[in-house]
């Protein structure tokens, strides 16, 4: 990957006084600073010359994170983002301008930072985090995630946990994760294999609202039901294989019209363009201020971890800004049976009559596992595989069989799924 060269010729020189504010912190320990803190040149050199940091996401949080890191003195920053700039980003993603709409976020953000903060090298990658291998992630001292996707976070988290080699101290990459929704947000520090990881806390996520298909098809009551009807049932029926593009105003317009017609037929009020777009794109409200708070909290932890100038967050900061400023700082505990960092199988007790199909249903409903369309196997046989089609077909008869016929008490079942960043090991026991 070619790195961008800075457009500013006077770039590399630090002018006198440049780090005046930060040097107050780096030249002197405070009352709560660890005695190991190497005040002065040693810590400054590490921060400004040696440290290499990776930012995942160049969106709402990512723009803020990049600016904060650059001003703090990190000079070798890499950023990954697979998205391009949309007009609806401009109310908060402050490194982008209307002329940048359609351009890759990572590239535009990197160029902006290098122009504004001389001497900082930002290396963009326009693509997926999954495109990169372990060697790539090994090169960084620290990773900050500013993502809006649970799946990407799970993947990054599992990758960094798996990277840890007890014999290689450098293989432990602290992961700082931020997230926002409206006036609320959270920032956390994950030390892979040592503290609670992202997967350990999956049950803290809000359950996404899902509308049962029979409600959508037969008994709509809310405007959302009509919109789901238009997008889930009518779009494929009318347009066949043509893919729905939720960024295409014509497609949204069609869905809106169809949903409004259905709503009128059932005397349901409240289908609007904005709601239609909100439902089909699963839009989460987002503002500059909340992103600024959470990104600053993340970067402050990155600064403290990288310099030891103050203790870092242990390990979770939660903010609610709807009623005053309420925050809660606490230690989220590691789960021994965490499928990613716990190293143990998840224990599950089944009724001996439970069928494979019922087990699959139970698994998909577990909030702490969040599995979609799982495939199951034991060390010796395939129980049920979702793909490829011929194996799906050959294992399908097992769905109706009892699990107890296929797996002995205490036996292990390996679960794989596209939503799981790793394979999950279940230890099955039976209630008597």
């Amino acid at each position, binding site marked *: 990957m070619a790195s961008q060269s800075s457009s500013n010729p006077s770039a590399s020189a630090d002018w006198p006084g440049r780090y005046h504010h930060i040097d107050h912190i780096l030249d002197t*320990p405070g009352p709560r600073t660890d005695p190991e803190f190497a005040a002065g040149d040693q810590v400054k050199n590490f921060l400004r010359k040696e440290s290499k940091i990776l930012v995942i996401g160049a969106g709402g949080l990512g723009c803020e994170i990049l600016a904060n890191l650059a001003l703090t003195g990190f000079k070798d920053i890499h950023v990954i983002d697979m998205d391009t700039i949309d007009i609806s980003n401009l109310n908060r993603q402050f490194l982008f301008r209307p002329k940048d709409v359609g351009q890759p976020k990572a590239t535009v953000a990197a160029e902006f930072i290098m122009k504004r903060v001389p001497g900082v090298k930002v290396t963009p990658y326009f693509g997926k985090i999954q495109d990169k291998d372990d060697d790539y992630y090994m090169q960084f001292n620290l990773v900050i995630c500013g993502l809006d996707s649970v799946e990407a976070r799970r993947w990054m988290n599992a990758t960094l946990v798996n990277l840890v080699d007890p014999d290689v101290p450098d293989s432990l990459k602290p992961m700082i994760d931020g997230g926002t929704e409206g006036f609320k947000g959270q920032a956390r520090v994950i030390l892979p294999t040592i503290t609670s990881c992202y997967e350990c806390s999956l049950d803290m996520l809000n359950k996404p609202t899902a509308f049962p298909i029979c409600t959508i098809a037969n*008994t709509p009551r809310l405007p959302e039901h009509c919109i789901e009807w238009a997008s889930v049932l009518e779009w494929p029926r009318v347009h066949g294989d043509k893919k729905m593009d939720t960024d295409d105003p014509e497609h949204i317009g069609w869905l809106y019209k169809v949903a409004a017609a259905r709503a009128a037929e059932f005397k349901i009020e409240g289908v609007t363009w904005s709601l239609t777009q909100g439902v089909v794109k699963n839009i989460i409200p987002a503002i500059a201020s909340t992103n600024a708070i959470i990104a600053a*909290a993340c970067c402050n932890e990155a600064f403290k971890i990288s310099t030891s100038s103050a203790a870092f967050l242990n390990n979770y900061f939660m903010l609610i800004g709807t009623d005053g400023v309420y925050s809660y700082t606490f230690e989220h505990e590691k789960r021994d049976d965490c499928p990613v960092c716990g190293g143990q199988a998840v224990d599950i007790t089944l009724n001996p009559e439970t069928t494979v199909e019922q087990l699959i249903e139970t698994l998909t409903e577990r909030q702490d596992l969040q599995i979609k369309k799982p495939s199951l196997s034991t060390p010796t046989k395939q129980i049920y595989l979702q793909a490829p089609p011929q194996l799906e077909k050959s294992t399908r008869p097992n769905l109706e069989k009892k699990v107890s016929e296929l797996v002995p008490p205490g036996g292990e079942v390996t679960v794989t799924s596209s939503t799981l960043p790793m394979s999950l090991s279940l230890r099955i026991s039976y209630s008597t």
Partner: protein
Amino acid sequence: MINDSKNVEESTTALATEEAPDNKTRRYDRQLRLWAASGQSALESSRLLVISGTATSTSILKNLVLPGIGHFTILDPRKVTPEDAGNNFFLEGPSSIGKSRAEEAVRLLCELNDGVEGKADLRSLEEVLDKDKEWLTEFSLVIAHNLEGGLLERLSKLLWEDESYPTLAIVRSSGFLAEFYIQYHEHTVIESHPETAQSLQIDKPFPALLRDSLALDFENMDVTDHGHIPYVYILVRVLEDWKKAHNGSPPSTYAERQEFKKLILAMRKKSDEENFEEAESQAYRAWTATTVPSEIRALFSDSKVTNITSTSPPFFHLVHALSKFVEEQPNHALPLTSTLPDMKADTNKYINLQKLYKERAEEEKKIFKSYLTVSVDDAMVDAFVKNSHALKLLRGKRWGSLDEDPKALAELVETSSKQLSTHLALSALTSLATKQQPNAPLTPTIEALTAEAQALLPAGVELPAEFGDAVGEVARAPNADLPNTAALLGGIVAQEVIKMITKQYIPIYGSCIIDLIETWTGMLPV
């Protein structure tokens, strides 16, 4: 399927009346979902003054320019120093050094949003306070970062003189520590966006709801219909029957409530009727008495409500009408909500129930309006009735009242020692700065800061144990405007300013203290 696609297309053209949103709506989409067009238009008509162009100030402004405030002015006579150029994102590094800090920041902030007007004013605050005080009162809100104590006192006293003068947001930061305060006389909120919904008043069913609930012939009903009756009808019906058998009282003991739930489940015709399961899980609604929340009741006896005059602000007229409504209407409850949660039901039954609630809510709103003695905008009345369970009235104090109140400080030593420690350390710094030559380097010792802080407390009251942690950090980096602290303040202060301007959501009440070493925020009450 009910329609084929052709029919769908034909029948819809008349129904979907909205065009695709324009560019402005698209740009602001993610925030309009939080504060709607009304909040946006309040932002767009606001005029902000920010004193001065520090990293913290420009971070705050960034988060206000992006969502689209109307106007901002940066008041700052200084030239950009090499130190400024290193920590402020809204300066262009070395090329800004020597130029006006206000002009550079305004130029770069304005790039964020064409719709916002920005101005640089190169006078000093001192000059303005001496010669042009009136100018300050023309803004809707003033934000001041790290002002020296004497100027801060003059500014905060001036803006406190009249209720109509601008709100003042005071921001102090020193290294990893920070505090901010919003000085306002009074702040009222109708659209507080509460998490809790209004009562469905199942315990006090309105006549049409009671009639329809009693008219249902559960026993002889078709099985499909039976499985699709909304739980509201079921609960009203079971509660009516219960009360008949229990001298008019709802179930009150644990045993009675369990019994009540059993009665609901016993009505099922099939074991898998989800609407009855839902009724059971919602059974608390039947025995939870619909009452007026104590905070709302307290508003009724507020002197501005009891002494209402024709010139009182609409909020107080609305509260006055609400108090009359509660007092005189037979239910002694807040006006009925028109918003029904989703529930297991078929379309017709749900829509009919929704219609019942809407019609009744409309009637009650009419009655409510009849208690109003002045005319109030319809949209405001609608919002008020909808949020009547979550109204907010905040009465603030002048900045500095806490430090002038040794008794209050002594109490806080006991109750909020961590937050107070940071506040005292920052207050000590502010007052030390006042005592030295203007623009002299600020390098206070821990001893000097401690003496200043101790002087704020009444004799015999010791500084909190945590004071050492706070004062040590202040002495370490007295005037360091760290990029991350600045960015965090930029977000948190802007957020509160948005709440003040839009009069939506609930702003802070008191001083917000921030510690970025242990990463916590806390409040010191007014």
